[in-house]
């Protein structure tokens, strides 16, 4: 059986996500959207806009800035916030480093990906958020496949896979004790393709790095790494120019590029349909071990 290109977005997914966003607004006192500037959190912002229309989005965006973001992502973030009249709160990993709470990794695989968990947990505590909505999807990775829509975290932000609350029908139980908080995943049931079809249907703007562009890269472990002041490279890793795009938007140190000529949404969707490498396959942070994601989630990662 061969897959044909699917252009049609399953409307049931939007209805479900809007329902979840409305439940989050109603059940919690201080929710926030965790915003990375990637396509999944952009989708989330669109859903929030639709869920409360003609009212305003009743919660702010929280961006944990590692300092290693693509400049294109930051530029996009500021444009979106301005255009939709949203409240944006930024907290910096650099501050956590300066406070001595975390230490910069060393070596050629050094990244701030793991460090941002500490900044995130501190921000949640400081800003007293009781619910943080994220754009994570269950199809991304197999530990995520087990995550609930309302995922309760303890004071230390930890996820206990064996103690999850059962979620029956569409009934969401967001009751928590003081100090606990909930991660909410409204687009849990979407796949990468669903997100792209939604972006296309809604005609949403996304950061330019998702489209094919010429970029200076190095080749390492069979992947294309974007060069940046944050990437530690060795002498024999010679940078060169290549037509690439990014399938996910993480840090410049942990997001690999894929060779691509796709410069329109249609081409991207066609490319994904034929792609041989899964979306997170281009995430260097998942490659550390088979249980990499589960371990990070237990530690409070998004």
């Amino acid at each position, binding site marked *: *059986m061969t897959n044909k290109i699917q252009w049609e977005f399953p409307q049931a997914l939007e209805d479900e996500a809007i329902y979840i966003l*409305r*439940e989050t607004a109603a059940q919690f006192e201080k929710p926030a959207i965790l915003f990375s500037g990637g396509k999944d959190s952009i989708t989330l912002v669109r859903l929030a806009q639709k869920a409360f229309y*003609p009212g305003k989005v009743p919660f702010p965006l929280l961006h944990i800035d590692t300092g290693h973001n693509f400049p294109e992502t930051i530029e996009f973030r500021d444009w979106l916030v301005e255009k939709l009249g949203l409240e944006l709160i930024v907290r910096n990993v650099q501050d956590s480093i300066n406070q001595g709470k975390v230490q910069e990794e060393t070596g050629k695989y050094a990244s701030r990906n793991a460090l941002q968990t500490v900044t995130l947990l501190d921000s949640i505590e400081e800003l007293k958020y009781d619910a943080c909505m994220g754009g994570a999807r269950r199809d991304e990775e197999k530990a995520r496949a087990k995550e609930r829509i309302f995922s309760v975290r303890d004071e230390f932000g930890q996820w206990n896979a064996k103690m999850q609350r059962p979620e029956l029908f569409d009934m969401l139980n967001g009751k928590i004790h003081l100090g606990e908080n909930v991660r909410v995943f409204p687009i849990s049931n979407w796949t990468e393709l669903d997100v792209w079809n939604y972006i296309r249907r809604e005609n949403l703007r996304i950061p330019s790095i998702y489209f094919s562009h010429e970029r200076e890269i190095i080749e390492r472990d069979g992947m294309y790494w974007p060069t940046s002041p944050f990437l530690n490279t060795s002498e024999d890793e010679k940078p060169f120019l290549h037509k690439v795009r990014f399938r996910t938007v993480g840090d410049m140190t942990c997001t690999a590029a894929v060779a691509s000529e796709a410069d329109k949404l249609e081409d991207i969707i066609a490319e994904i349909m034929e*792609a*041989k490498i*899964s979306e997170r396959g281009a995430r260097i942070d998942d490659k550390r071990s088979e249980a990499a994601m*589960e371990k990070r989630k237990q530690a409070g990662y998004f």
Partner: protein
Amino acid sequence: MEVLHITTSGSVDDGKSTLIGRLLYDTQSIPQDKMDALHAASKRKGLDFTDLSLLTDGLVAEREQGITIDVAHIYFSTPNRKYIIADTPGHIEYTRNMVTGASTAQVSLILIDARKGIVEQTYRHFFIAALLRIPYLVVCVNKMDLVEYNEARFNQIVEDFQQMVASASFQAPSIKFIPISSLYGENVAGRSEKIGWYKGESLLEYLEQITFDHADSTHPARFPVQSVIRPMTKEFHDFRGFAGKVASGHFNVGDEIISLPSQQKSRIKTIQQFETQLSIASARESVVITLEDEIDTSRGSMLSKTDNVPSLLKEITAQVCWMDQQKLVPGKAYLLQHGINRVKAKVQQINHVIDVTNNKIVEDKKELGLNDIGKITLKTAQPIFADSYHVNPANGAFILVDEFSNATVAVGFVE
């Protein structure tokens, strides 16, 4: 495009994860890097084949023990529709997860090991599918390769299963039997040549032709109000809309409605989906409804059409599945959440406990512990606006929440 929800159940080692892996493989849903990881992981385990079950057993503990502990969600698409599989554990101690996975499903897929036939777990799975009134039941007789694709063996299992169904007091859903080998992909996506005596559809062929007209659109119209939208901006100064997802049935602009619990009536002025004005909203659609009159309606209220109003229940008899380590304490106050509406509730009595392996009442047992299913009577502090689960499932289920631990301790089905 439609979405079809499937729940899978099976006993230990009956090849459920392999079957799901196979479905993904045959629909080309496994990207190359995941395939490579599977090859490598299989090799590390000393296997001489690619173990497709490793694809879904997501947690470290599961990989170590080779079993499925939690509900995992798996996605694949065909050009026809999107599929969501809730893969649930087969162990007795995870009955609550089976119920959870089944709660959203339109299709229940039960696996039977062709060598073993019907086992205790099969009864449990059938009972849960029947309790939740899942419309389609697909029984896959797996590991046909280990019984030489023997037709008589398959027929025997079909007969045994039908006997079990006949002896059950509950209404049986539509049942389809398919002989398969998930390891070799026989009758999974394509039809098997080795099982030539079977003339029916393969599993995927069967799933593809299931028509699921959301039965709830024929059910009474129910709209639980999630929140009131009052922008109070210049542009929308007097706007007062009720946001929610239609639980069942449908509403049209102009319909006369009644709001519960206030029992005030009005007519639907507009139905909005973001900037679009609709004339009708059907089951499962998230919309904003405005009314002609200002009536007392807020979060937790329910709008229904005046020709079919749900009863206001304060005393409820329900089947429940207990989901918590701590047993049900009669007389203790729990929070009852019906849809989005929460009220305090006390369990008056445990009427009986059911042995789900034979559908008989357990003599002398009057307590409900983890994974037990039984019938209880509850009293609520305020009325809930529920339908009987067998008449309108979308408005007939509730959960119980422990006020101290905040855990979801039970799911109930209103009688």
